[in-house]
């Protein structure tokens, strides 16, 4: 069953955000991401923390959009913002005893968190300094198409088939386990 000549579709290229990227948008998303990440650390109300986390994830998704990795951005929103975070909020809301729960970390917890944050930050900075930077104005052309759905699909079902399947089996195991735990509790 043919759908007729669709060669016209090839002319209508999708917008490439990497080429139309306005610096203002980039800085907007970057500032949103950083500020809300900072706010997560300093807030004590746990539900507000999750709202700031939502803003951080959304800002990161916006940055992915700007880089032309649209699929990654959408999946970031679906999986982290739409799925994981909503489960976290559910868990908090169902388990907290008092209405507006406060979180007060101990001194050693703060010290441990600072240690971990500084070491991860140092590692990232090291990686950034050591990686080769493209000439300005050349980056967009080198990266066009790398975030396209078909490229990602071919990579996942081609070169990276084994890790992909391992992750799928792991998720299946988790799902069956969750269903089993929920069932046992219902019968007791």
């Amino acid at each position: 069953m043919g759908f007729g000549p669709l060669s016209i579709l090839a002319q209508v290229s999708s917008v490439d955000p990497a080429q139309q990227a306005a610096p203002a948008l980039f800085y907007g998303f970057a500032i949103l991401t950083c500020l809300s990440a900072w706010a997560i650390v300093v807030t004590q109300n746990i539900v507000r923390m999750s709202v700031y986390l939502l803003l951080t994830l959304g800002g990161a998704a916006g940055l992915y959009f700007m880089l032309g990795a649209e699929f990654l951005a959408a999946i970031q929103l679906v999986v982290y913002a739409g799925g994981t975070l909503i489960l976290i909020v559910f868990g908090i809301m169902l388990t907290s005893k008092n209405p507006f729960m406060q979180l007060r970390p101990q001194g050693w917890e703060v010290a441990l968190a600072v240690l971990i944050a500084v070491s991860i930050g140092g590692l990232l900075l090291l990686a950034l300094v050591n990686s080769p930077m493209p000439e300005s104005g050349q980056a967009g052309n080198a990266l066009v198409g790398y975030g396209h759905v078909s490229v990602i699909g071919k990579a996942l079902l081609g070169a990276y088939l084994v890790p992909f399947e391992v992750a799928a089996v792991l998720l299946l195991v988790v799902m069956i386990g969750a269903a089993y735990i929920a069932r046992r509790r219902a019968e007791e």
Partner: protein
Amino acid sequence: MAPQLLTSLVTMIIAVQLILLSCAYLILLERKMAAWIQNRIGPNRVGFSFGILPFKHHCWGLGQPLADGIKLFFKEDYTPLNVDRALFLLAPVVVIIPALLGWAIIPWGGYLQWGDAVVNVTAAPISIGVIYVLAIGSLAVYGVVLGGYASNNKYSFLGALRATAQMVSYEIPMSLCVLIVILMYASPRADVLVQFQANGVWNIFYQPVLAVIFYICVLAECNRAPFDLAECEQELVGGYHTEYSSMKWALYFLGEYMHMITGCAFFTLLFLGGWDLPVVQEPVVAGLGWVLLKSGVFISKVGFLLFLMIWIRWTLPRFRFDQLMRLAWRGLIPITVILLLASGVLIFLRQPHWTFLAANAAVVVGVLIVAPLIPHGPTINRRIPLAGSRFSPAEPAA
């Protein structure tokens, strides 16, 4: 300025204005249709004079949305004392934003010939297309969750939990439906999906079962009857928006109507062939006249689906919560997974598209045969011996 950017901007502005205006009149249509279905007359008095202007005609009640809006703005905007104030203010806004963002990829009018260039009459022709709508749609839950939590009220809280469980559950079959359509046409781009349907047959004739499931999921996602448990006046006062008043309350309902329009537009582009007219063979790339005609066709299809939604709301009674969850987890999700597998096998074997219709019919027959054989779990209908409930005395008999 690049033609595509200019087209995007114009489309964006027109679409937002048009949809916000139609939200207002959708509410009037809803009230009118409710009246017709219930053998009443409905709102027919408010014209555009508002008792001040000399113009006296009643205008068949067309001034009603304007009057409603004015009323909502001037009502007391009451914020209870013990709410989490920032989140309480934020929640209605969070409802509106995903509903607005979802319109970005709707292909209103096909392709426009602009000098040498071919532009796409849509706000954002991004390569992931319909996946973007799913991503944005998954954020719609936050308005409900935050509103229910910030209200600091047990009724709001329970209403929010219910609504969240409902929206999260119905997102799964909805995403699977979209996945099957992407598999069929091998592209997630909205304009490509519509163009394939315009060149062939509308998708609803290949996958009728899928279309029905998707429509049910759209109803559930925007909390419309028979899935409007989120409001649940009988049990939870007003659900998650119990504490909201004035324009904040109105934003929740504006969000609902905007979600309805987004959902219907999404249905149109996935199953009803988008801008395609049934008999006429329209040119793929056309001038402005054709684009306007195509947009009109798209909008008419969306309008028909909205009409159907309102009709359903005033015809069917509301589901109970356990029935609603059972429908999603034991009905829709297994059926869509089976359809996904069947479609995947058919696509792998490179079968023609009409075999999908056969697969749909086979699934219906299979469900009719298999469903009575599956043992039912314990239903919630049995009496629960809970002290204080209507089945048990408040104090256990000593």
